[in-house]
């Protein structure tokens, strides 16, 4: 595991704390990923997917990749859900039109 250089900076957490944090986040990511698959309703699934993206961003932060964190935060937690929501809205709009035609 990534070992923090021994306490020269107040911003460096002890190695054991970092290890624990990484394990907790790995477990949470696995739990949320399973939740995404198990959620059936599309709109709810998008919301769960968004929180999965958020958790993944935190994981990247704990693994010392702040640049990837920023990308994941914006793409995984915001941009992807927005695109999916728009697609869902479009599909539902078409369903409504078809019902109106009948």
């Amino acid at each position, binding site marked *: 595991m990534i070992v923090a250089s021994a306490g020269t900076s107040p911003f460096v957490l002890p190695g054991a704390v970092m290890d624990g944090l990484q394990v907790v986040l790995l477990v949470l990511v696995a739990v949320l990923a399973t939740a995404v698959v198990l959620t059936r309703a599309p709109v709810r699934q998008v919301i769960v997917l968004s929180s999965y993206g958020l958790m993944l961003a935190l994981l990247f932060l704990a693994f010392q990749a702040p*640049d990837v964190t*920023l990308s994941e935060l*914006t*793409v995984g937690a915001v*941009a992807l859900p*927005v*695109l999916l929501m*728009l697609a869902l809205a479009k599909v539902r709009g*078409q369903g409504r*039109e078809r019902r109106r035609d009948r």
Partner: protein
Amino acid sequence: MTARTRTRVFLAAMAGLAAFYVWGLTGLPGFGSYPGPYGYILDHVAVLQTNATGVVSAINFSYRGIDTLGEEFILFIAATGVSTVLRHLRGEREESAGAAALRAEGPAPSDATRQATVLFVGPVMVMGWFLGSHAQTSPSGGFQGGVILATAFILIYLAGQFLAFRRLSPVPLTDAVGAVGAGGFAVIGLAAVAQGLPYLYNFLPLGSVPGAVSSSGTIALISFFVGVEVAAAFVLIVSELLEQTLLVEAER
């Protein structure tokens, strides 16, 4: 194929996959171990060579600049693809802006949503520009800054201002800005070639203070162009989808 045969085939395939998977896992290096010298060398020389304290940016925009150029064009082509696929087809018509306005605005957002989003537009935009222009000093850069800038535009839509969103990001303008961003990166590379240097060589003055915003030569400049391109590409994708969802109706 009966259900029983199908289960047998499935189990045999799973056993095979599991065997290969475990075999593959046993050959992996330990967790967090890094065998190659490349990263260690860059750790020592990157700041000295480029005056950029954001070493990740130095790698993305200088040492491995050609990779990033490819990535940038992936996004550029994706945006081009979206706007091609979502162009108005025969048999579809766009509602006139006036008639669409009512429907396009959709159900009005609650006051709380409106207040919160309007409150965040300014700070989010500042943060996007900050990240995009500080690649050389911090673990940020054009990609992150650009996407966050685009988020500011999405917030304007969330505040219930679809027409404002459209006015602020007309498609021809977004197209042009995106092209300038993508082209700028490639042109910086060619500018080095024109001076007889390797493609994407960092030919600008590096500044005297490592970690100063004005340091790092082409790294800061490339990050800026990437930010502009990424912001434009995301705004373009979102606005094409919004238009498709809200304005285009199949002809009946």
